[in-house]
C-alpha cells in the first residue's frame, strides 16, 4: 500500500529526516560563521596579531586568509559526503513509500 501524504508528513522517519538535515546544515553554517567572522573580527580588533611574522617576512594573516577559503571548501565537501551517504538513501526510501508503496 502507498503511504499517503499526511501519513508521510506525520511519520517519525520523515520528521527525523527533516530535523537531521537542518541539524547538519545549520551546524556546518555555524562553523562557517565562526571561521569567517572570526577572521574578520580578529583583523578588526587585533591587527598586531595578524601582522606578527611567522617566517622571514610572511605574516600570520596570509595562511589564515588561505585557511578561511580552505575551511569553506572542506565544509562544503563534508555536507556533500554526508548528504550522498546518509541523506539520499533515506530520501529514496521514503520517496518510494509515497510513490510506489515499497519498503514498508
Amino acid at each position: 500500500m502507498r503511504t499517503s501524504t499526511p501519513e508521510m508528513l506525520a511519520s517519525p522517519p520523515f520528521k527525523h529526516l527533516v530535523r537531521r538535515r537542518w541539524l547538519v546544515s545549520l551546524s556546518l553554517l555555524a562553523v562557517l560563521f565562526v571561521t569567517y567572522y572570526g577572521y574578520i573580527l580578529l583583523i578588526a580588533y587585533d591587527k598586531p596579531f595578524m601582522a606578527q611574522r611567522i617566517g622571514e617576512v610572511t605574516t600570520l594573516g596570509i595562511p589564515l586568509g588561505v585557511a578561511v577559503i580552505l575551511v569553506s571548501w572542506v565544509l562544503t565537501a563534508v555536507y556533500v559526503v554526508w548528504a550522498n551517504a546518509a541523506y539520499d538513501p533515506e530520501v529514496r526510501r521514503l520517496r518510494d513509500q509515497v510513490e510506489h508503496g515499497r519498503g514498508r
Partner: protein
Amino acid sequence: MDTTLGTPTLSAIAFFLVIVVLTLAITYWAAKRTRSTKEFYAAGRSVSALQNGLALAGDYMSAASFLGITGLVALKGYDGMIYATGWLVGWPALMFLIAEPLRNLGKYTFADVVAFRLRQTPVRIASAVGGILTVLFYTIAQMVGSGNLIKLMFGISYESAVIIVGVIMMAYVLFGGMIATTWVQIIKAVLLLVGVTVLTGLVLAQFGFSPSALYAAVVERYSQAALEPGGLVTNPIDAVSLGLALMLGLLGLPHILMRFYTVPDARAARVSVLYATGFIGYFYIIIPIVGFGASALVGRDLITKIDAGGNMAAPLLAEQLAGTPFLGFIAAVAFATILAVVAGLTLAGASALSHDIYTHVIKGGHATEADQVRVARWATVAFGAFAVVLGIVFKGQNVAYMVGLAFAIACSANFPALFLSIVWRRFTTPGAVASILTGSILTVGLIVISPTVWVDILKYPQPIFPLRNPAIVSMTMAFAVGILVSLLTREPSAEAAFEDEKLRTYLGIGAE
C-alpha cells in the same frame, strides 16, 4: 617599461576572434536545441553537475574580481586578500540553506519558490522588483567596467566597447538561451582558470617557486606593511555588514539561483556547488599571488600610471613575464569573462520580465510555450538594449559601489523572502511583499545616505548613515518586517500547502 596595452595588438585581436567565433558557433548549435521554455530558461535540465559547477564559477568570477582584486592586492597588499576571502564564503552558505530546496521547488526563477504557495500576482511582482533591481545594478557595474577595461586594453572607444559587449552577449542569450549561456560560461571559466594558473606559475618561477621569496621581494620593494592588514577593516560593524552582504547576497543573486534549474535533480545541484566552490576557492587563493607578483615585478607606480584603480595590474604583469602574445591572451580572457557574466545577468533579467511578469502576472499562468519563448526573446532584447544604454549613460561615473549595492539588495530583498518561504509555515503573501519591499527600499535609501554615495559621490562632508554597506540593518529589518506582517495576517491556504511543499522540498516529490 613600454607597454602595448591600449593598442589593439594582433595577438589580442586573434585570441578575441577565436573566442567570439567559437562561442557563436556554440550559440548556433544551441539555437537548434532551444525551442521550449525549459530549453530557453533551463537548458532542458540536462546540464551535468561538473558542467554546472564550471558555469556557476563562470557566472560568478567577474572581470571585477580578476582584474580588480589583483589590482587591490598589488596596490594595497594584504587588504586585497581579506577582500578576496569574502567572495567565497557565500558558497557553503548557499549549499547549507537553499540549494536543494530551491532546485526541488522552483521551475525557472527564484520567484517560483517564493510564490509557490502564496498568491501569485503580488508575490511575483514584488520578487521581480527585487530580482530586477539586483540584476540591474550588477549589470550597470559590469557594463561600465567592461567599457573602461576594453578601452584600456584594446584602445577602442568606450561606447563601441559597450555596444560590442551588448551585441555579442545578446546574440548568445537571444538565440541560444540557457544552453549557449551555460557553454559560454564554461569556456570562460576554463580560460580564466588556465590564464590565472599560468600567470601564477610564471610569477612563482621568478622566485624559485617559493611564495616566501615573493613576499620578501614585495617587502623589499615596498615595506612590511604590504603583508599586514591596513585600512580595509577598521570599523568592525562595517566589516561584518559587508561580509553579510557578500556571503548572504549570493543566496539572492537571480542569475546564480537560476543556474540550479539547469541540472536534473537536487543531488546534481548539491554536487555542482561543491565543484563551483572548489574552482572559485582555487581562483581566490592564487589571485593574491598574481597581485603580489605585479607589485614586486611591475611596480605600483607603473600600475597606477596606466589605471589609477589598479585594474591593469594583471595584464601588465602578463606582458612583462611572457610578452605581447600572452597579454593578448589575458586581455581576450578578460573580455570573455565580461561577456559570460553579462549574458547570465541578461538571461536572469529577461526571465524575471517574461516568466514572472508576463506569464504569471499578465497571463495568469496560461500562456502557450511558443508565446512564452517569443516573449522571453523580446525581453532579452529589451533588457540587453537597456543594459547598453545604461552603460553609456553611466560613462565616467564611479560605479564601483554598485556591485556592493547589488549584493546588499540581494541579501536584503531576495534572500529573506526566499528563505522564509522555504522554512516557515506561517509566512504569508503580505509578509513576503512587505519583506521584499522593505529590503529593496531600505537598502537603496541607506546606501544613498551612507559614506559610499553621500560622501564619496555626492561630496557632502558627513554621512547621515554611518555604515558603508547597509546589509546588517536592511537584511535584519527585511526579516523582522516579513515575520511581523506574517504574524499579523493569516493565510490558511498557504499554511495547508506548506505540508505538500515539504514532501517536494525534502524528498523531491513532484519536482520539475
